[in-house]
């Protein structure tokens, strides 16, 4: 009988890790915008589920907005190339790590639970700088 809770715990873990594959959902997009996933270019329709490693790409009139599972929110401006290079989140403990790389373009961020969980658990990399996010709202712009 004592084994049962353990077995249930295992099932919960498996469910949690398969659900953790989804890191964010697209809320809106307009103009030329796509998600680059390895060699595929995917259309960011509302509800589209992002995975760690995905790159957000917009053209000169393109925009995208998305919400992450830790409640972080992004708005991506035109002419952007932004990768979510690392995203890990433990929903139960509300901790994780989150690295975004802004190669060019503009990004507005409202940070969520990962940034609150540990100092510099959320980082943003630009071509010249690595920033640690300490719970806040900000805009990064990288000119070409």
């Amino acid at each position, binding site marked *: 009988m004592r084994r*049962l809770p353990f077995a249930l715990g295992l099932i919960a873990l498996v469910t949690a890790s398969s659900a953790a594959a989804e890191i964010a959902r697209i*809320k809106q997009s307009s103009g030329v915008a796509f998600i680059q996933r390895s060699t595929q270019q995917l259309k960011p329709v509302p509800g589209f589920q992002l995975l760690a490693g995905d790159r957000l790409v917009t053209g000169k009139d393109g*925009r995208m907005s998305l*919400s992450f599972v830790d409640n972080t929110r992004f708005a991506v401006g035109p002419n952007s190339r932004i990768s979510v290079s690392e995203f890990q989140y433990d929903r139960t403990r509300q901790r994780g790590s989150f690295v975004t790389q802004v190669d060019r373009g*503009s990004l507005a961020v409202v940070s969520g639970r990962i940034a609150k969980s540990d100092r510099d658990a959320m980082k943003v990399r630009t*071509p010249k700088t690595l920033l*640690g996010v300490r719970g806040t*709202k900000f805009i990064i*712009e990288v000119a070409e």
Partner: protein
Amino acid sequence: MSWKYLPAAGFLLGGCATSSLVLLPDDDGRQGSLAVLEANGRPAQAVIAEGNSRTKLGDATPASRPLGEKGLNAREAALLTSLPPPARSFLLYFDQGTVTPTTESQAVLVQLRAEIASRSGPHVEVTGHTDTVGSETDNDRLSQQRAEEVLGWLASQGFDRSLMSATGRGERELKEPTVDNVSSAANRRVEVIVR
């Protein structure tokens, strides 16, 4: 390349490196900060903490300027406007041992339905909880059933199941801390987060 193009080339090279940061207060008025951990490939230790400021990035010790009267430019303002709305949380309560929301919580279900319908590309996380009456195993099952019940109701209202997930946390996350085998209306709940 003729000499005529040199100034333009110089401008492009200079422009290539330009990154800037605008730091704003949180929606609740609090001010967070950003740390410069690396600049030009070298470790750095600066902190940018001044709200409503603009900072050119690249130096190990960047200087921030207040946004001043001009405030945000049109591009920045448009970017902020396109941010998704913040996540919203709903709490539903249950009578002891049941999977039926209390009468008061039926009204919350209606608000919840309206909130999901108002969002583009919504994501709904349903998490069930119990009080400490009964065994852990039974409570794991009951909390999962409560979450499934709410998810099932939302599905019956026309929301696609792929938008939603249901998890049971049993008696692990008490809202009102109690010892074992204590009935608590505050702990018999389902939390729904809508993003």
